């Protein structure tokens, strides 16, 4: 009998001070319908009990002599130890649905052109305003945008919190690069330029812990915004010949800039200058449009009330996100001061 794909899989879990969540993560991997051959937790210089807890939960733990300085650095350390044809990266604060590994490996196993596959992300805790905003953002993005990108063969990003890779392609790409603050986007676009495919598997569910307060959300939004700008600057020449991807990136960049300016500058000024406070309705004019995909998936998940209660937070998060996008553009492009420090988002 041929081995199951999961028998050929090594799961890499980078962790820095994740004592509160790493046990749940390791257990959720071990309790898969098809558990992997090996689980490596990289304890990246934690000062808490991350290593002990991960080992106790059933993972193999490796520890660099000093903190590597980034998630990519920790993942590369483990990648050097991988001997299986498939690798998987899972954040130490992310748990999986019981069949997530089996489902995520399917496209990799079925098609040798597929270098990476990513799953559907749903925040594990949805109670604070920031978690609620992110919850709606994910439901919208993973229900409408990502499947559409996948249909046209180019998901914008294989999310770093839960992605599977063909190990040889990952090694060919040089592992996870530390040159940007969004190593998952960097790797995805590198794969496309090398002619490989990336797939989105909506049935493979994962549940990360999202930033619960503004302090952590600020760090995550800053990292994501800078990471996006850094990747556009780094890859624009390489992705330009890739028709769909370059169009998606171009539209996303343009829309992000226009949205940030409209929400933070144009709308408030127009509302005051024209003495038309009703213009502020524009901030939430797309509520019904956002609700369509969100409620479709929320109904399937039996989370209609949660989705409706969470909706206002999405619009707050969007406006705040606008600030960090402008800040990233200003410091990265105008001041030419790239963000070099990797700050963990929670």
């Amino acid at each position, binding site marked *: 009998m041929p081995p199951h794909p999961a028998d050929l899989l090594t799961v890499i879990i980078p962790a820095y001070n994740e004592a509160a969540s790493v046990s749940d993560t390791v257990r959720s991997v071990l309790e898969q319908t098809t558990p992997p051959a090996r689980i490596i937790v990289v304890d990246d210089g934690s000062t808490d009990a991350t290593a002990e807890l991960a080992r106790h939960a059933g993972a193999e733990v490796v520890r660099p002599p000093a903190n590597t300085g980034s998630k990519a650095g920790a993942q590369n350390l483990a990648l050097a130890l991988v001997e299986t044809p498939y690798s998987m990266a899972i954040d130490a604060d992310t748990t999986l649905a019981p069949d997530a590994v089996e489902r995520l490996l399917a496209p990799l196993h079925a098609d040798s052109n597929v270098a990476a596959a990513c799953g559907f992300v749903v925040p594990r805790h949805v109670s604070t305003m920031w978690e609620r905003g992110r919850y709606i953002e994910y439901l919208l993005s993973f229900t409408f945008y990502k*499947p559409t990108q996948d249909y046209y063969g180019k998901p914008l990003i294989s999310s770093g919190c839960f992605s599977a890779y063909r190990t040889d392609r990952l090694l060919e790409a040089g592992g996870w690069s530390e040159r940007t603050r969004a190593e998952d986007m960097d790797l995805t676009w590198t794969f496309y330029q090398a002619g490989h495919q990336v797939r989105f598997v909506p049935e493979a569910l994962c549940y990360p812990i999202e930033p619960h307060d503004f302090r952590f959300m600020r760090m995550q939004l800053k990292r994501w915004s800078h990471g996006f700008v850094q990747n556009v600057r780094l890859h624009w020449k390489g992705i*330009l010949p890739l*028709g769909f991807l370059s*169009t998606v990136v171009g539209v996303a960049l343009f829309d992000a800039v*226009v949205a940030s300016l409209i929400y933070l500058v144009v709308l408030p000024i127009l509302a005051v200058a024209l003495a038309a406070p009703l213009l502020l309705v524009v901030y939430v004019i797309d509520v019904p449009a956002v609700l369509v995909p969100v409620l479709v998936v929320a109904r399937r998940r039996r989370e209609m009330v949660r989705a409706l209660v969470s909706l206002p937070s999405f619009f707050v998060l969007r406006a705040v*996100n606008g600030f960090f996008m402008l800040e990233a553009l200003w410091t990265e492009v105008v001041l030419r001061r790239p963000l070099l420090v990797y700050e963990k988002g929670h």
Partner: protein
Amino acid sequence: MNNAGLPGTGLGGLFYIVLALGMPLAELYRTLRGRSSLARWRQVGMQFALACGIISVTIATAASYLQLADAPSPLGLSGPALILAPVLLAASMLTCLVVVLRIWAKVQGPAIKQA
């Protein structure tokens, strides 16, 4: 609307709606070449239905907005023009953006590949 982690106006959303509306045609093309499947058609049906749903509620929202007694009329616009103007503006901007990107890729792409 835009991808997770990126703020967006309706422009990004409009782009994806156009893509989703184009899926049945693209899939029909694949079907005629024997490269389709039931699972793919299911995905196409879902995305197409979502796009149609978004368009429908957007039209309903616009109609409701026009019913507001004191709907503001910035730049002298009123009635359906008030709703149509931003939609047409967004569609024009999106078209221009995509055309410029494609022309740029056509002109620069081969040179970049050679380099």
